[in-house]
């Protein structure tokens, strides 16, 4: 087996885009090959699989591949060999707690896994468009998988006038962003604004305080929203958030797209495509994985698959994770739907209601 070739072949397969669905057999074939590589190169993961009686010859399909929990990334390097980058989980929701670290052997593969979804779900035409990013640049946040993905987007799709209007220390550059918005309006150039939910809340709060002015952006402008709020100053529903964004930018909610990703996965889920006429209201949208990723909803006790429509823990198998571990058990709850999409219900709340014992989140909050 030649791993480099496997990386290259996967990248080539990803470059076919997200429009064509991969058959179960096609996905299983890839998954089997990827699992064999991970089993052979990663002794810790191999031990984990052996404890479950699952080796490459015991796995009939992707659903048989043992999944590692996302929290394992906080303690272990699960990517054997040389890394081109190491992504870290955000420190915003876990205070000073240990961050998850995901070593990435091939940024080219991460790029190959990211661009098709970005292009398709942001409904980009040839030539790209002007991108206004409220996500810190990869220069300022080299360990952020999101910043790296936005660097790919800016490089591949960013037209003249694109730029980044945030940094990790100072947050959103409201002044620069306002100037870019005004320029887009003056020049009648539609823009793609990319940001975390929290960055948009910052913008909305600034407008409420008179530090930002609503604009009416040219038709065809669109929003990519990602991330959550936990641990931040306030949380709002997605419907509320989008209504506020529409009020501030003039961009209708059908042109607002959510990306669901995590540091431990190198592929992303999307609830686009932007601008489609048949998009449901924000609260009713579901997320679709790319063809090279599959998801299951499992019982946290038995890890057995739950029927469609029944909530449980989300477990993903992402072939773009070929350099680490592809099967990942998340801390997010979700529902699998018959159309192959998932509804993400959010972070498992832990023991709720918990009582009067201090939870980790409370402890970290108290220590800030």
């Amino acid at each position, binding site marked *: 087996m030649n791993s480099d070739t496997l990386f290259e072949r996967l990248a080539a397969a990803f470059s076919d885009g997200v429009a064509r669905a991969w058959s179960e057999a096609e996905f299983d074939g890839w998954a089997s090959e990827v699992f064999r590589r991970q089993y052979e190169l990663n002794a810790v993961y191999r031990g984990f699989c052996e404890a479950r009686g699952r080796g490459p010859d015991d796995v009939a399909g992707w659903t048989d591949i043992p999944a590692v*929990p996302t*929290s394992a990334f906080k*303690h272990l390097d699960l990517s054997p060999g040389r890394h081109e980058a190491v992504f870290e989980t955000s420190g915003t929701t876990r205070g000073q707690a240990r961050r998850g670290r995901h070593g990435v052997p091939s940024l080219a593969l991460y790029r190959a896994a990211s661009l098709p979804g970005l292009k398709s779900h942001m409904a980009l035409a040839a030539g790209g468009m002007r991108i206004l990013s409220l996500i810190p640049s990869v220069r300022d946040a080299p360990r952020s998988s999101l910043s790296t993905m936005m660097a790919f987007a800016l490089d591949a799709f960013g037209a003249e006038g694109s730029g980044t209007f945030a940094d990790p220390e100072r947050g959103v550059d409201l002044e620069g962003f306002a100037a870019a918005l005004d320029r887009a309006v003056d020049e009648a150039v539609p823009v793609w604004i990319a940001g975390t939910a929290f960055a948009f809340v910052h913008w909305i709060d600034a407008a409420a305080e008179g530090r930002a002015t609503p604009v009416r952006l040219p038709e065809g402008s669109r929003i990519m929203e990602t991330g959550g709020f936990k641990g931040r100053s306030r949380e709002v529903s997605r419907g509320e958030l989008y209504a506020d964004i529409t009020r501030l930018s003039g961009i209708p909610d059908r042109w607002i797209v959510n990306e669901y990703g995590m540091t431990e996965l190198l592929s992303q889920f999307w609830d686009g495509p932007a601008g489609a006429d048949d998009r449901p209201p924000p609260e009713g949208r579901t997320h679709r994985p790319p063809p090279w990723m599959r998801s299951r909803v499992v019982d946290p006790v038995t890890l057995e698959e739950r029927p469609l429509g029944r909530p449980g823990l989300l477990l993903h198998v992402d072939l773009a994770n070929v350099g680490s571990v592809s099967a990942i058990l998340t801390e997010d709850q979700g529902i699998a739907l018959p159309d192959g999409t998932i509804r993400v219900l959010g972070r498992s*709340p832990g023991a709720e*209601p*918990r009582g009067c*014992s*201090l939870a980790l989140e*409370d402890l970290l909050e108290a220590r800030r």
Partner: protein
Amino acid sequence: MTGHPDAGPGSAAAALGRLRDAAAALRGTRWSDRVRILGRVGARLLDAGDPMRARVLAAMPGDARMSPAQAERVLDGMARDWTEPRLDTLVRVEFEDPDALDRWVDDPRAPEGRRLRAFPLAPGPGLHICAGSVPGVSVSSAIRGLIVGSPVLLKPGGGDRVLPAALIDILEEEGEVETAARILADAVECVEWTGGAGSLDETEALDGAAFVVVYGGGATIEAVRRAVAGSTPVVEYGHRMGVAVVGRGADLDTAAKALAAAVAVFDQRGCVSPQQVFTLGPLGGTERAAELAARSSEALAALEGSFPSGPLDEGLAGAVRQLRDATELRALAGDGAQVWGGDDLEWTVVLDPEPELRPSCGGRTIHVTPVGSEADLERILLPLGPHMQTVGVDGFDAGAAQGLAERLARIGASRVVPLDRIAFPPPWWIHDGQGPLRRLVRWSADGPV
């Protein structure tokens, strides 16, 4: 159960109105009568022949997500502290002259003499918000308020709704045969709303209460502080973390059984529950930590048969799954971690050699961490500061135990006790650093000083 007002918009305002009306009559009762009548609540809930006990035991497991065995143990542990002798001791421990709750009393300690009187924290009903799921917390809070002569509007926590209803029912029944009991029955009401949702009841209660007692996490307490007028006193009981320390002299089998019992009573929900246990011993405590972890796992496994845990909710099960599998991977990587657990995630013991704070994710889950010295222990616990609640200790001789208690108390521990005393502190315990009744009163002095 009867005596439980219908929830709904306007319930809180109406309840506060009735409680204001009840305040004068409550002021006219003596503390000793209040303690005597409230003591019947504990006595009846302990009485195996009382139908109220049977009703509570039937309803508690479902409401509190506990096994029937846990519900019975918790009821017995809590109700024992609501009996007259225990409540009488509480008052006498807290007040040098308890009659100060009823009238002006001489204070011979003051050089020029003076008279003192203890009044409720503010005139009017107190709002007791119990945002938690430990059964009994709401009733204990209400009883404290009534003892100091303050009408109580109770917002019980989810999972703690059965016992407040029983309190009200018992007082109602007692009120049919004794006037003073009737007065107490009129001085406590219970209203439910979803905390933080901005409901009419929540707004009315926060606006209308003379003072607020709030049990909850940082966000809940902060929200209450923001919602009440600046002049409204707020008594806060924030979330806390309990730990245990097992010294070189401990018999590990005994310690493990005591720890398992402390973990199991409330499935780690209580602020006193020991979430992490530190072992001291040769080789940095490593060998003893491993042995204690193994024996704790045996003890928890045995308890699961005789004293089953409550049902796991999805979120908790997910958190335990993450912990279990991540620890297994760490063990395979050779970092010294080990994990033991029940087949259905009902209990988990993690041996974690990293010298860090590890709050339990909940359920019957405990971390065992070796430490080389008391100084190392102090360094690990220091960030916890005032969030440290009970520390259970075992295996120290008297002198060493005193020294350890001094160290832990300086950091923030408010209670240092033997392992087998962790679960049920007496009513007169130093709750988060202060006497629980004294936090509910204000003092007035009459005299030359």
